């Protein structure tokens, strides 16, 4: 199932560690952030002034290319 914009960033990075690189590349503060378990991809892209569609696409691409952890 592809990543949804309503999923939290914490959950996404936990399940698909390859997505961490995407957050780094977009210079986002989400990695290890105390708010990460509450903030969705939509929230995070809004706060960082990023295009949510673009971020979601990048996250999906990274998740597809990397391993998934239960």
């Amino acid at each position, binding site marked *: 199932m592809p990543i949804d914009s309503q999923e939290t960033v914490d959950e996404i990075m936990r399940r698909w560690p390859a997505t961490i690189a995407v957050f780094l590349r977009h210079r986002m*503060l989400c990695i290890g*952030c*105390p*708010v990460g*378990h*509450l*903030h969705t991809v939509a929230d995070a892209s809004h*706060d*960082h002034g990023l295009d949510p569609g673009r971020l979601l696409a990048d996250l999906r691409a990274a998740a597809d290319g990397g391993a998934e952890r239960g």
Partner: protein
Amino acid sequence: MAGQHLDPSLVRGFDLFRPLADEEIETLISRAQSRRFAEGDTVFTQGETAAAFFVLLHGRVKAIRTTPDGHQVVVRHVGPGELFGIAPVLRSPVYPATAVVVAETVALAWPIADWSSHFLKHPSLALGAIATVGDRLADANARIVELSTEEVERRIAHALLRLVAQAGRKTEEGILIDFPITRQDLADMTGSTLATVSRTLSAWEDRGLVRNARRRVVVVAPHRLRLIADGASER
């Protein structure tokens, strides 16, 4: 460069020299050397024996201090008309910082040994130098207040984020810290005072970062709070 003739008009307009008569300026600058530095040059190095003090005529220099653990801090910027390299004021035989040229610079340099004799001969110059030191002290004090305020704000922001991590719940308003928390609790968590926490939370409420009620805090703009906690510029 001995024997070079320097024109008093070079320094006439600077506050430091304004109270001096033309003849006084003549005598004074006859002892000075004019030196030119390119961008990136080092005028003097921290810890080096102070051989000269300077008045910057044109350009810009920054004073960088390196701490024992290797951190470099820009202590101040020096512009036209300002004294720098005045180690004797700090009762130090060595330069307290490294002076690096930011933009091509021309400065007058006097032998450090002349420092006290200049001031004994030209009391108005001494007054100017005291004013320079006074300005610098005022800047330093303002910076201390700024740094300590910033530090407390950062700690309070961190404390709120830790509470968000532990007990945050998303609501319509924002992220509610779903746990009764008083301002005194936040003061205790941050080694701060009730008054400081209250003032900070009210200021943050005005800026739309949080919403406060009795024993209840809603974080409205967690991302901006995170920027404060990280010491990044929030606006």
